[in-house]
Structure formats: C-alpha cells, structure tokens
C-alpha cells in the first residue's frame, strides 16, 4: 500500500471518529437547546403577567386572563385517572403473559399491543369522538366530550409502554425465586403475587412513571375528546364534565396568537411547565433504571 493513501485513510478515520463523538453528545445539546428556547420565549410571560392573574381560576386570553390552575388541574385529573385505569389492566396483562399463560398467548397478544402503540394519537382521538363519546353521554354525562372520555383514551395510549416495561421487570426476576416459592408449597398464584411481583416492584414503578410521562404529554387525542372547557375541576362530577389540558391549550391556541404577544409567551410558559414536569417524571423513572444497572439486575 502506498503511503499517501494510508495517511488519507487516517485523516478520514480521524474525521469520522470526531464526527461520531460529536453526534454522541448531540442528545445533550438538543435537550439544552429545547430548554433554552422554552426559557427564552416562556420566561417573559411570568414577568409580564401579575402573579395574582397567573394563579387565578380563569383562562380567558382574549380578556388578558391567564390563570393556569384550571389547565394544570385539568391535566392532572385526566392523567391520573388514565393511570388509575391503565395500571391494573397493564400489570395484569404483563403478569399473565410472563408468568401465568403458555407462550402462545404472548405470541398472540404482543403484535396487538404493538399495533396499539403504533396507532397515531389523532386516529384514537377521532375514534374517541365518534365511538366513545356517545357511549359516555348515554351513561348520563351532559355531553360525551368529558375528562373521563379523555382519560379512557389516554389509558389505552399508555398501556403499551406500561405493559412492555413491566414485562421486562418481571423478566429480570431470577427463576430461582419462583422455584423457591413453589418448593415451599405455595401455589403458582401465591408465588406470583407474594414473590415475583414484589421482586419486580421497582421495575413496575418505572413502568408506571414512563406511562405517566407519556399520558401527561399527550396532545391530539386529549384535545379532540375532552371538550376543552377551561374550568376548575373541583366538584365531584368534574370527571364527567368537559376539561382542558395544558397540551391541548398550546395546540389549540398557538396557531392564532401574534408572535411576541403576552399570549404567545404564556403558551411557551405552559410548554416550559410541561417540559419540567416530564423531566422530573423521567428523572425518577431513569433513577430506578440506573440503580438497577449498578446492582447488576434485580437480584
């Protein structure tokens, strides 16, 4: 091989490896960039709008009323209800396919759950409007487009995440745990319930956190089925009345605001709140993942 060719190759290798290092760090760059942009465009809102206005119960941007509490509580109500519905069903399904049922059950269920994960949120929102909302209305709600309708759709959207992470968690429980449980005379059910599931606890918590993060950030489906009324969800029947989330507010109003107006900055401010919330939720989820790694699996 002639020398010039070799140096050329060394140079190109050097260049490629430098590029790969740069790309490796790009994720940090993007997170920082997103955070800085939200700060830059969102922070002015918190200075321009008086605190009393921000913490009021009214969101009417046309009258310069920017109370974020109804949106925040709307998001929390819908997300938490969705998680309450999704967790028992998802964990039950994960336990069934990993512990209780023969392998063919998993082979049948897996593609369907993957299909659910693949259905675009706007399609689920459309189905929520045309199929689920009329049913909710028949149950006695004044309208079909309610917080509950949104929570139901969100529950199904977060199930694929919760099921697959919970399955992984159950998978890391060593077989010896199950053998020990069974050899002590426990039934299969007792072994699952008292030994395997508790051993997978931290992984299941991660699953729930990731599902929560997915649910709170969901936009289109929620915007289409919750009726979008910005009211405080404080009465008992709030679940069966229209509500509005932070995500839906951004999506519905950003298209119409003047760039640079208070309303514009306010919507970025809501984006900043959402970013912070999901950041914290994912941080908690990630910390259990890292802990698990350090100990070398759940043993």
């Amino acid at each position, binding site marked *: 091989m002639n020398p010039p060719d070799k140096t050329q190759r060394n140079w190109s290798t050097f260049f490629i490896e430098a590029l*790969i290092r740069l790309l490796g760090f790009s994720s940090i760059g993007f997170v920082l960039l*997103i955070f800085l942009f939200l700060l830059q465009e969102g922070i002015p809102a918190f200075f321009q709008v008086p605190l009393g206005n921000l913490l009021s119960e009214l969101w009417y941007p046309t009258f310069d009323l920017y109370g974020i509490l109804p949106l925040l509580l709307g998001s929390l109500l819908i997300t938490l209800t969705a998680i309450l519905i999704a967790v028992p069903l998802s964990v039950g399904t994960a336990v069934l396919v990993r512990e209780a049922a023969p392998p063919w059950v998993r082979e049948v269920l897996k593609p369907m759950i993957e299909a659910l994960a693949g259905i675009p949120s*706007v399609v689920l929102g459309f189905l929520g409007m045309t199929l689920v909302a009329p049913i909710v209305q028949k149950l006695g709600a004044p309208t079909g487009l309610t917080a509950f309708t949104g929570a139901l759709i969100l529950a199904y959207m977060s199930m694929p995440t919760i099921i697959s992470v919970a399955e992984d968690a159950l998978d890391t429980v060593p077989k010896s745990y199950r053998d020990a449980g069974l050899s002590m005379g426990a039934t299969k059910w007792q072994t699952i319930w008292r030994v395997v599931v508790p051993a997978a606890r931290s992984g299941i918590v991660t699953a729930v956190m990731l599902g929560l993060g997915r649910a709170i950030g969901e936009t289109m489906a929620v915007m289409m089925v919750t009726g979008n009324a910005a009211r405080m969800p404080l009465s008992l029947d709030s679940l069966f009345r229209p509500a509005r989330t932070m995500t839906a507010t951004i999506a519905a109003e950003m298209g119409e605001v003047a760039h640079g107006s208070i309303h514009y900055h306010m919507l970025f401010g809501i*984006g900043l709140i959402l970013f912070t919330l999901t950041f914290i939720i994912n941080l908690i989820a990630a910390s259990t993942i890292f802990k698990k790694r350090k100990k070398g699996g759940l043993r």
Partner: protein
Amino acid sequence: MKKRYLTQKVGFSLLVIAALVVVLPILLVIGIIVARGIGAIDWTYLTTMPLEGMKEGGIFPAILGTLLLTLGTAVAAIPVGVGGAIYLSEYARDTVLTRAIRLAIINLAGIPSVVYGLFGLGLFVLFLNFGTSILAGSLTLAIMTMPIIISSAEEALRAVPTEFRTVSASLGGSRWQGIRHIVLPQALPGIITGVILGLLRAAGETAPILFTVAAFYLPRLPRSIFDQTMALPYHLYVISTQVPGMPVQMQYGTALVLLIFVLSLNIFASVIRSYYRRKREW
C-alpha cells in the same frame, strides 16, 4: 388447601379478564375503521385533489405530504441517530458524561410532542427563518424521532458479540474499520427495524407539525422544501373537528389510509427483525 386453589382460579381469571379488556377494544377499533373506511377508498380518493371544501375528491396532497415529511425526517434523523448509537455502543466508557447522554436521551423521548412543536416553531420557523415549511417540520420530527433511533440502534450494535471486534482488531484493523466492515453490517437489520419504528411514529404525529409545516388546505402540491404541505394526521384532525358536515365515510377513509401506512411499516419492521434473527449465525 381448597381455598388456596380457589383463590388461584379467581386470580388467573382476573388476569385473563384484564388482558381481554386491553386487547378486545384494539381489535374492535381496527375492525371498525376498516369496515367503515374501506368504502371511501378507491383510486380517485388516493390520487386526486380535495374538492368542495374537502368534502369531495381525494386526499392525494395529504398522502404526498406525509411521505415527504417522513422522507425528510429520515434524511435528518438517521445519520445523527445511528452516529449517536455508534458512539454510545463502541466508543463511550461509563463516565458521568456518558450517563448525562443517556439521561438526555431518556428525557428527549419523554418530552411531549406539542413541546417539540413549540421548539420547532421557535427555532426553525422563526429564529432560523425557514417559515412554516417541509424543512422546519421534518427537522422538528427528526429531533423527536432521534431518541427512538439511538436506543434501538445501540441495542442492535451491542447485540453483536465482542469476539467480532476482537478478531477484527487482531487482524490489524483499526477500531473504525472493525465498526465499518464488521459490526455495522451485522447490526444493520436491527438498526433498520429501529429506524422504521421511529419513522412510523413521526409519520403519525400531528402536534409537532401543527405550527411548523401543516396546511389546513392547500389546493396545489408543494414546490420546494420551503413550502407548506398538507399531511394525513393533520388532515384527519381538520376534517373531524373543523369542517362541519363532513361525510363520515371520508373521515374513516382518511383514518384507514393513515392506519394502513403506519401499521404496514410496523409489520414490515417485525418481518425484518424475525427474518434476520432466524438467519444470523451467532
């Protein structure tokens, strides 16, 4: 003794019921979309422009727009995502910095899609002055897709046995030569699967394109990457919430076209994965 087995029976029945509650609505929903939408779809619907305020005619500009956006996302996200994965799998050591990268990826994956939309609006549309354009929309979708591509590509690269790298190095190959000629080709099917899964998520998203590219109605096709475009998910949103008196069959038709696009990519990805898993020799 008997009571324990009764509890077991009840417990297992509950699990089966939970799984059925999860799965049956999925089948029902897909079945309903197919049954109600199939009548709307014919050659004209797929290949002509919308007419009469979108209540008649076809959805061709929306289909083309989604294809263009998916392509743009692929061009921007694949090099960055795969490069990032190669760094994490082949170069990075377990340092604080590497952990920061992993944390960043987890957080990127968790950022709400509408916040990506805000970011795209702030950076690409306004700050870089791309305007609402295919370029701005594709780049926004690309950043959203990146964490999915990085995680799955890294997993595929890590699955390649260490011996492959050792042997390559023992024959005098540099680290990059080993990656380029040995590891990358072996991991390719897994990487492709991950890329497709990321892209299908981008293709179905609405919130990130709301303020960065999507046009409510555009009576012509986009002429350049600085043009707006219609897109299938946004079109479905528009015709199901913003157009009064929209024929229901056309709504289901659009939902079905979007669903077929996304689910066929999904199936394609699984087929690649299982085909190469059976074929590989390690």
